[in-house]
């Protein structure tokens, strides 16, 4: 049997695909199968991050094909890195880069992680302040729920608790 694609080489790859209960059969030579990506199974396992990352950027570029580099894109971080350097390198230059390129990085983080805010471990030095902030945040959420259920007594209680914590937070920041 000859390859269905090039009709020159003998078929050595025999594929049966079932898509939506439709069975199709294909007989290809190895070269054509490779070109069509039908032998990609082992290749799929190895996810190469730098490539994947530049894929995220390509998506950006795809949407701004005509746009000249914006002011933000030309801006350099104190470590000397520009956003374009980051694009090529796939890596940031220093911890300040996250602040310098914050606006451009957040959409990338959202695509990679589905989130942009850290919720995990906090260094002890930051602990007091951050745990207060997280507590206030969760109390505010609770307050909204309580209000929507019209439990005003409980809401007043929560409001006082939040005020108290906010005062404490102000003290932490000053101290």
């Amino acid at each position, binding site marked *: 049997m000859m390859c269905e694609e090039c009709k020159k080489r003998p078929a050595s790859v025999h594929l049966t695909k079932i898509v939506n209960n439709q069975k199709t059969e294909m007989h290809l030579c190895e070269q054509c199968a490779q070109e069509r990506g039908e032998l990609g199974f082992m290749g799929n*396992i*190895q996810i190469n991050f730098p490539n994947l990352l530049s894929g995220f950027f390509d998506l950006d570029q795809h949407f701004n094909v005509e746009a000249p580099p914006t002011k933000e894109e030309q801006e350099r971080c104190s470590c000397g890195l520009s956003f374009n350097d980051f694009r090529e*390198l796939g890596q*940031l230059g*220093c*911890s300040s880069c996250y602040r310098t390129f914050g606006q451009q990085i957040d959409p990338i983080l959202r695509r990679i992680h589905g989130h942009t*805010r850290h919720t*995990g471990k906090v260094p002890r*030095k*930051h602990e007091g302040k951050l745990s207060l902030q997280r507590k206030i945040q969760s109390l505010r959420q609770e307050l909204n729920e309580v209000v929507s259920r019209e439990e005003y007594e409980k809401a007043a209680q929560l409001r006082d608790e939040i005020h108290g914590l906010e005062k404490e937070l102000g003290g932490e920041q000053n101290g």
Partner: protein
Amino acid sequence: MDKKACKWLEDPGPQQEIVLSTRIRLARNIATLPFPQVAKPQDLAQVASQVRQSAENIQGPWGKLHYQPLEELGVLQRKSMVAKHLISPQLAQEAENRGVLLSPEQELAVMVNEEDHLRIQVLLPGLDLDRAWALASQLDDSFEESLDFAFSEEHGYLTACPTNVGTGIRASVMVHLPAITMVNQIKQLIHGVTQVGLAVRGLYGEGTEVVGNIYQLSNQVTLGRTEAEIIENIRSVTGQILEQEQQARGVLLGNAKAQIEDRVYRAYGILTQARILSTQEAMSLLSDLRLGVGLGLIGGISYPQLNQLVVTAQPSAVQGIMERELDPQQRDYYRAALIRERLGDKAREKGENK
């Protein structure tokens, strides 16, 4: 170096018939210095000296940490550390200002100036995620007492690559799945695993081939979830995979016991008699042997021994043990000799003593 104990190769661990090892890795950077890829040599030297100094005062259940500059090691020694999973292939490539902090039992290995300033790694035998996380976090806290890590409230621990930002954690388990592979379910399994946000890789991580039916599962997302959530996700997926592998093993044993037994003993026969073995062949035979041990078809071989054999099968390990560069033909010859020597007459048929 090879005579030194290495915990995941010496000690038994939970669920070791299927799980070879557990690793937790935390990426950390010193706030005031540029990340390694753009740092100047003097910055890197600064990182190494700060980390070294910090480690001097660190105490923990792991004992005293020892700093090993890579410059002091030959290429072969570095490669054999890669084979034992203590350092990454990336770190082994460059030596200047690179190093690794090791605990006496080598369950802790902190890479210095890899992609990030610090890569805190805990490596334990079997499935032991909680203990690995506890140790990694404790060491992280100890470093933090004298080092100021790059951290922002919004983005968490800041890393060179945005794929690691937030928790900086990569939790991974190395699993041996011969039965799922034999019953042709591996493709579906990998598909399912990637759907729940885990990556599947080969024995030596990113960009390596799957050999000997050994797969590495690890988390992809590091931001917006807590370490506990990330670890729980890996644990629950690994648990399901273990169940499926056990089930597949049961099916094989029920339907084709003679064939499996034949396969296991053929593997044992070749491993103990062959004079030339490629890495590929050795890995595939070792997979059959490990399956045989797991199914109780063959006895007298421990899991740490099997883990050691997997490492011994690697090209760099053979050269490291022989302490010289070998061409591929010589390697295959010495590999066979080393495996014969290590496997010896240890195996015996189950029930022989009855």
